[in-house]
Structure formats: structure tokens, C-alpha cells
């Protein structure tokens, strides 16, 4: 018995690993289901009495809010929307994608809770091209929708993202803690689905808790979600 003790110890470790593998492989996706937003326009689930995101964000002194300092040359004939927000489900993968256009500049975010990619690119002639780490997105804008394909590493999924209005859409929050940068990303759909992920530095991260639009506490760090109007300039600025 005691001579075999170390072998049993190893065996228990192997069994634990096998159990964790099975549990992880069968774990459900990290999409959060919350009460769907009523179809009636104007119903704003984020406008809780103590937390009005617009007012709060507006009150936040933030360098990213300097309006339109970049003079993007506009072509009169280009039918691409000057400002549009799209969000939808990625087929097969089950994650969400959000794309926001602001005067020819485009930001995007793809996240299924497990993997994520922040995307940047351009829009012209109703076509969007976005790039991010290990990720390439191309989409056509047609009938109020962005439809296209996302390539992540060696995988490829289709998606269709409809036009959405706040409080649905894309949110990003950044914070600097002692030695590392914290970046949170969230996507919210009008049907109440949401997904998010919070990264600490480049290599550590975890799925975000259910998103309610307000300040998200993450290990005691307050993260204030910003909409694309607020974060796009800082996001697209070259990294210092």
C-alpha cells in the first residue's frame, strides 16, 4: 500500500485532469441571457434610477471625448453610413460580434466569452474590412445589416449583424493598474444576450460577469464601459 502511495497520487492527478477535460469540453458557452429588451422603442433597461450611463459618462473627464479632431476625407458619393452600429451572433461559434462605424473608421469586437478579438479597420463602398489579433473580418453593408465572415486563426464563421441602438451594441473599458493594463469588452444585443471578457495584460483574462451597462467591478477594479463614440479615438490612436 504505502509503496504504491506515490503511484496512487499520480493516478488521482490524472483522474482529476480527465474530469476537468470532460467538464471543460462540455461546458456551455459564456453568453449571458438576460431579460430581453421589449420590442417597444424607448424601453431602456440600463436607465436604472441610480445609474444613468449617459449622464455618468458625460460627467467623466475623458481625453477620448475630444470630438472630430481627425479630418477624415469624405467622399460625397460613398454610400457607406457615416455612423452605424451593428451587433449580432456569429454562426456556429455562437459568440457575438459588434461593429461600429464612425466617419470611415471602424472598430469591432468579437467575443464568445472564451476567445475575443478587438478589431480595427475601414469602411468604404459599403464594405468593411477589420483586423485584429489572429482575426480578419470582412462584411458587406446591405439593408441595415452587416453580413460577412470572421476568420479566427484557422477557423471561419459567418455572421449577420443588424443595426442596433444604445443600450445595445459595443462597450469597452480600460484601466491601468500598477503594472498592467485591464481591458474589458462587452457586446449587448437587443434580445438581452450579452457577452464580455476582461483581459489583464496580454495573457491573462476571464469571461466577464453579466453586463448591465454600469460600472463593472473586477477584482476591486472599477471599469467604466464606454460606447464607441467615447473610446474610438483612443482605441485607434497608435499605441504609445
Amino acid at each position, binding site marked *: 500500500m504505502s509503496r504504491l502511495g506515490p*503511484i496512487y497520487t499520480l493516478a488521482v492527478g490524472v483522474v482529476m485532469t480527465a474530469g476537468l477535460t470532460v467538464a471543460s469540453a462540455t461546458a456551455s458557452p459564456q453568453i449571458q441571457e438576460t431579460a430581453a429588451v421589449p420590442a417597444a422603442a424607448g424601453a431602456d433597461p440600463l436607465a436604472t434610477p441610480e445609474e444613468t450611463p449617459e449622464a455618468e459618462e458625460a460627467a467623466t473627464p475623458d481625453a477620448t471625448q475630444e470630438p472630430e479632431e481627425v479630418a477624415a476625407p469624405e467622399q460625397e458619393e460613398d454610400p457607406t453610413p457615416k455612423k452605424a452600429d451593428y451587433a449580432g451572433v456569429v454562426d456556429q461559434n455562437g459568440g457575438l460580434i459588434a461593429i461600429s462605424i464612425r466617419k470611415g473608421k471602424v472598430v469591432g469586437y468579437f467575443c464568445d466569452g*472564451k476567445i475575443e478579438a478587438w478589431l480595427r479597420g475601414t469602411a468604404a463602398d459599403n464594405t468593411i474590412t477589420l483586423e485584429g489579433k489572429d482575426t480578419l473580418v470582412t462584411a458587406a453593408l446591405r439593408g441595415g445589416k452587416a453580413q460577412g465572415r470572421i476568420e479566427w486563426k484557422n477557423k471561419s464563421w459567418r455572421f449577420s449583424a443588424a443595426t442596433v441602438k444604445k443600450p445595445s451594441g459595443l462597450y469597452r473599458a480600460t484601466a491601468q493598474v500598477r503594472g498592467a493594463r485591464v481591458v474589458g469588452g462587452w457586446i449587448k444585443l437587443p434580445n438581452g444576450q450579452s457577452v464580455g471578457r476582461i483581459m489583464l495584460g496580454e495573457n491573462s483574462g476571464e469571461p466577464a460577469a453579466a453586463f448591465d451597462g454600469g460600472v463593472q467591478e473586477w477584482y476591486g*477594479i472599477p471599469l467604466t464601459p464606454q460606447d464607441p463614440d467615447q473610446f474610438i479615438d483612443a482605441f485607434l490612436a497608435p499605441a504609445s
Partner: protein
Amino acid sequence: MSHTQVAPQNRGAVAVLVIPVLAGGLVAAALGVYGELHPPTGFAYGLAGFSGPLAMKVWLTTLAALLAIVQVISAFAIWGKIPVQGSWPGVVHRWSGRLAFLATVPVAFHCLYSVGARYDDPRVMFHSILGCVFYGVFVTKMLSLPKRGLPGWTLPVAGGLLFTLLIGLWLTSSFWFFTTIGVQF
């Protein structure tokens, strides 16, 4: 010193270690290859009760590191470096070791399954390498323990290595988390 040795030291004894060392080397290499080739899932099943997987890993690693200190002290007692009566240092050593090992399993699983080995950041690179080597040395030690005729230095060297590796793993993960984010559950 010599009276504590469980077997007389001779040239042939080293041959006893061939299989354990080879097995350990294979385990370390296999973990490294898996960490490199397996596409990170960004998610892995873990223990509940923490606010997130990072906190789970940070605290389980801290538990293992504390138990590693118990390991060193109980090993000193086993080898007569600390005068104690009775056989309980052996019992404490075995069970604190088992607990420490099992505490690391969900952590290593999350690291390898969800994140994978990375080499683009010194902290993460050292952590990846130390982690793979740790399990290699652990397997070597576990497979050596039942063998008779081990060279007398085998267990102290293996144990000392494991302690050093585990503390290195703790410094490159939990300590980094505590000093970056703070002491959070």
C-alpha cells in the same frame, strides 16, 4: 549524514533512476508540446467559490506554495535535521505533498487548456517553462519513491527542485497578481 541514508551508495544505484527520469522528461516535454500546439480555448472548468478563474489559480497556487514550505520542514524532520519524536513527519510530508499536488492540478489544467504555453512575455515564458519542468520532476520523484536502492541524494535533490520550481511558479503568477491587482478573492 550517512546514517540517514536508506541505501548504501554505489555506482549501480543511479541506474534505478533511469526510468523515473525518462518518464519525468517525457511528461515535461509532453506538457510543453501540448501547451504549444493546443489552441487556447480561453476557458476551462475550475473550482467554484472564487470570483473568477484567475482568483482560483492565484489562491490554489498560494495554498500549494504554503504546503511546499510544510514539505521542506517535514523533510528536514524525516532526515533528522530537526529533532522530533515519532513517525508523524513522514505522515505530514506525504499528505501535505499530496494536497499540494492536487491543489496545482486545476491550476495547471486551466493554464494549459485555456491559455497554453507562451513565450512573448518574460513572466509568462518563465511560468510556462517552470510549470512543465515541475510536473516532470514530480513524476520522477513519485516513480522513484517506491524503488529500493536509490542513491541517497535522490529524494533531497528532487524535493529541493520541486520546492524551488513551485516557488518560482508562485512568484510568476500569484505574487504578480497580488502586486498588480491586489489581494482579491
